[in-house]
Structures are given as structure tokens and as C-alpha cells.
């Protein structure tokens, strides 16, 4: 059953690591939600004493005092995001480039199946794969909030989760598309990782330096969390940018994969 087609096999191959990534994400969400009542109040006090530009960087004291503001800073701006970068880029890279470099792609395509079909099923697997670890963060937060007896905006959490899913798709499909277009694992991993790291650096530097403000638009994180979807809801065009990155990467990868020599 699990080897009925490429989609199911790909999901099956990744299920153990998806499980561990998701368990980790759940633990992170849970831990931070449990810590919120104690940590947030002391953090808020600390933040009030910080210079204004630092507050701009990590969020205002008032924001930090709410679960949505606190959880936006961590895990959603930090560890859960980094984990999703690692997860999605790894999966995207593994879809075509790793199969090609491991010399199993020839064997796969020796069957009556088209390159497009392989690509579509691998893409679908990436879409499905990212859902569980993203949802796990939210579930962890909900459990933590329940235990500590405070409420979290469900709508905000859903929109934050959707935004995390979209940025995961953006970096994942960037890796998948580049891997399919070039057959290079190095490029498939390196370019999206660079986009994520540079985006992250810009995202943390822009609030500190006024003159860099316009640079925020070239940071992928701006479209993920720039308008703080946990607190303010999703900004449609920001989500659109993330979707567009994923879609363009997908189309570019499909076109090149269908028109190049396989290694």
C-alpha cells in the first residue's frame, strides 16, 4: 500500500523524520506556552528598560505581555521557523536532486512514468509533509495554554500557522525547483538556505537601523511575519508573495526538469 505510487513512497520514506520533527515542534510549542505566564511578565519588565530600538527589534513590552506577542517572538520568529526551514529545504532538496545524485532517478524513470508525474507527486509529498510539523507547533501551544489556563487567539494561531506553512512551502519549493532544474544537491540546499539566512539577518537588522528600512522587502521573513499574523491576522499580499515564490520555483523546476539531461 505504501509503495503504490511515488507520493506514498516519498511520504513513507520521510515518515520517521517527519514524526521526530513534529514531535520536536510540538515540544517547542508546548514548552514556550508553558513558560509564557512566568517568562513573559519578567521579559516585559526587562523590555521596558531596553532602548527603543531594541524594543523595535524584539517587540514592545505590551506585545510581549500577550501570549500572541510572546509566541510570535518565540517560537514563531525563532526556533520553530528555523526548524521548518531545515525541514522544508531538506525535503525539497531530497525530492529530485537527491534521487538523481543517488542514481535512483534513472531506475525510477525506467518505468512507464513521465518526468512531470514524478515531479508532481514529489511536490505533493512536500506539500503534505510540511503540514504536520507546522500543526504540531500550534497543537503544542494549545496544550500549553490549556494547562496554564490562559487563552490564545485561535484565529491568530491558525493564521500564524498558515504563514509558517507558506514560508515553508516557499523555501521547500525553492529547494525542489532548483534541485529539479539543476540536479545539484548543493544548489538545492544552498540557495534556499542562503535566502533564509539572509532574510533572517535583514529581518533582525532592519528594526535597528532606520536607513535599512526598505531592505525589509527583500527579506522572505517580512512576508512571513512582518505584519505579525498571530496578532494582526494575515496580510493577503504578503501571503501572496510567499505563494508566488513557491509557485514560480515549482514552475521553473518543472520546466527545466522536463527539458534537461539527467545526470
Amino acid at each position, binding site marked *: 500500500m505504501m*509503495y*503504490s*505510487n*511515488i507520493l506514498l*513512497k516519498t511520504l513513507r*520514506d520521510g515518515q520517521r523524520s517527519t514524526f521526530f520533527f513534529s514531535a520536536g515542534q510540538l515540544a517547542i510549542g508546548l514548552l514556550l506556552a508553558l513558560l509564557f505566564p512566568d517568562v513573559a511578565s519578567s521579559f516585559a519588565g526587562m523590555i521596558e528598560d531596553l532602548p527603543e530600538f531594541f524594543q523595535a527589534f524584539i517587540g514592545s513590552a505590551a506585545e510581549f505581555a500577550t501570549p500572541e506577542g510572546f509566541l510570535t517572538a518565540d517560537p514563531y520568529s525563532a526556533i520553530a521557523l528555523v526548524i521548518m526551514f531545515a525541514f522544508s529545504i531538506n525535503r525539497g532538496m531530497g525530492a529530485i536532486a537527491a534521487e538523481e545524485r*543517488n*542514481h*535512483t532517478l*534513472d*531506475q*525510477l*524513470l*525506467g*518505468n*512507464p*512514468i*513521465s518526468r512531470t508525474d514524478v515531479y508532481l507527486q514529489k511536490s505533493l509529498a512536500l506539500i503534505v509533509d510540511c503540514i504536520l510539523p507546522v500543526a504540531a507547533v500550534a497543537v503544542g501551544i494549545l496544550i500549553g495554554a490549556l494547562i496554564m489556563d490562559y487563552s490564545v487567539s485561535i484565529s491568530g494561531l491558525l493564521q500564524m500557522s498558515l504563514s509558517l506553512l507558506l514560508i515553508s512551502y516557499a523555501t521547500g519549493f525553492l529547494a525542489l525547483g532548483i534541485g529539479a532544474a539543476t540536479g545539484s544537491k548543493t544548489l538545492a540546499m544552498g540557495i534556499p538556505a542562503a535566502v533564509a539566512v539572509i532574510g533572517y539577518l535583514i529581518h533582525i537588522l532592519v528594526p535597528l537601523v532606520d536607513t535599512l528600512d526598505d531592505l525589509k522587502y527583500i527579506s522572505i521573513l517580512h512576508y512571513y511575519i512582518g505584519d505579525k499574523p498571530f496578532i494582526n491576522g494575515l496580510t493577503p499580499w504578503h501571503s501572496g508573495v510567499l505563494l508566488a515564490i513557491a509557485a514560480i520555483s515549482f514552475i521553473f523546476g518543472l520546466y527545466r526538469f522536463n*527539458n534537461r*539531461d*539527467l545526470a
Partner: protein
Amino acid sequence: MTTNPVIKLENLTKHYGDIIGIQDLTLEVPEGEIFGLLGPNGAGKTTTIRLILDFIRPTSGKATIFGLSPRSDGTDIRRRVGYLPGDFVTYDHMTGATVTEYFTNLRGSHPSKLNALCERYQLDLSRKIVQLSKGNKQKIGLVQAFMNDPDLLILDEPTAGLDPLLQHEFQQMIHEEKEQGKTIFMSSHLMSEVEATCDRVGIIREGELVTIDTVSRLTELSLWTAKITFTHPVPPDTFNNLPGITITDQTDDRTFNLSISGEGSMDAVIKTAANHKVETFESQHASLEDAFLKYYSTD
């Protein structure tokens, strides 16, 4: 040659930048034939196979398989093809059973020969691929290529890693496939393998097809070799004026190793040698290996 060959290559050319993969390869393989592409590593054998299967695209020229284009009708072609890649590797974390199950599902056809093949090769499908020796991995490769009873088998270095007994088993299996009317296109750098299995062989050198003919004709091209030792020194040009006679080695002024090919005749060699006192005379029929080396030693 039949009017509808299973494989038809017309001036098929593949360049990788300045490097020639294959150049103007033209050949036809009719239904029911075992065709061997013979050449050393890097000669262009795998490139040819990968062009046939549309893994790479030709720089120029054309390939048709079952009258179809590999580019536009790839899935229809591959539905009828069993393929063994060179240096066969598969998913290490899977077992032989799950690998064959996976490829069966992708093919959407019943693996009618699976059990018989496993029995024949004494293959344990329950073990993970990573635990298998190179030879056993190659068996998995052969089983997955043959198990769906395809019309055309494309095998890239099929016996790599197999011990002599299994190589013999493979040769028998190839002949059984032929008896069932299957077409086989295989590459090899092993002359003995091609000689034992193929109806026709193409010798490929630096991407170009040097010659193509039946195995028997190719061996006839280099009909005989002879080693003559005289009791006393003879002039080095003794055999020079005989057509089709090549001195392949002259260890000293008494011993000559000759190759008799094309228009050369053994009669002329014996009569010329008889002008001197012969100590020993050995001759044997040339093998495909001799033919192969002849083509490779010619600049």
C-alpha cells in the same frame, strides 16, 4: 533487416559541450534479436542507452523505439521495456520485496516472472538492499528488469558483479527470452559475454560505431592467428608481401605471431613459411576479443 525495427537509431549524436558522447550512431535492432554494444568504459554505450530511454536528449539525429519517439511517447515505450541501469543502485533502506513491489505498482502490470526469477537466482527478497552484496544487488536489478515480461530488454553491463555461475545463468536466461521472441539490447565490455549471448554486435569506440555485424562474421574478419617458430633466423620481411597478413608480434628473428584476416589466407602463410625450416606451428581461430582488439588498435 525488418521494415519495423524495435530500435532504430539514425545519426544519433550527443555532445557534452566539446566532448563527444556519441557521434552519428546509426543502427537497427529487429524484433527477436539480441544485440550487443561492445566497447570499453567511456566509449558511449551508456550514453546510447540513456538516449534511447529519454534520460538525455540528442544533440542531433533521431531514435525511435517500437516506431515511437522516446521524447513524446516515453511512457508508452517504457511500458514495454525492462531496464537494468549500469552500476545498478536502488533504495538502500528498502527490502528486495518492497523494491519489486514498488516497481510493479509503477508499471501497473503483474510481475509474472518474479517468483521464478528469485528461485533461479536464489534471491532472498526479505533482506534490505543495504545488507546485500554487489552481486545480490545486481540480481535485484536483473529481477526487476525481467519480472514484468517486457517486449524489449535494455541491459547496461548486465553481469557486472555476478560470479561466473550466475553469468552463465544469465546467458541462458537471455537465450530463453530470445526463444520467446523478446528483443534484447545490451551493452558490455566483456567480449566473452557478448560472444556467448548476442546475435549481432556493434563495436563502439570514442562515441562512434566502428563496425556492426554478426558475432560470427566479426570473428571471421580476424579469421585465424598463427605462431610460427623457425629453426634458424629468417628475414623480418618474410610475410610482408602477403595480403591480409599482419605481424602482431615478433619476439625474436625466429618467432612470428601473425593475424590472418580479410583477404589473407592460411594457405599463403603455410607456403611462405615452408620456404624455411619450421620448428613449431600453432594456429587457432580468432575470438571476438581479437576482433575487438583489432578495431581498437587501429588508428
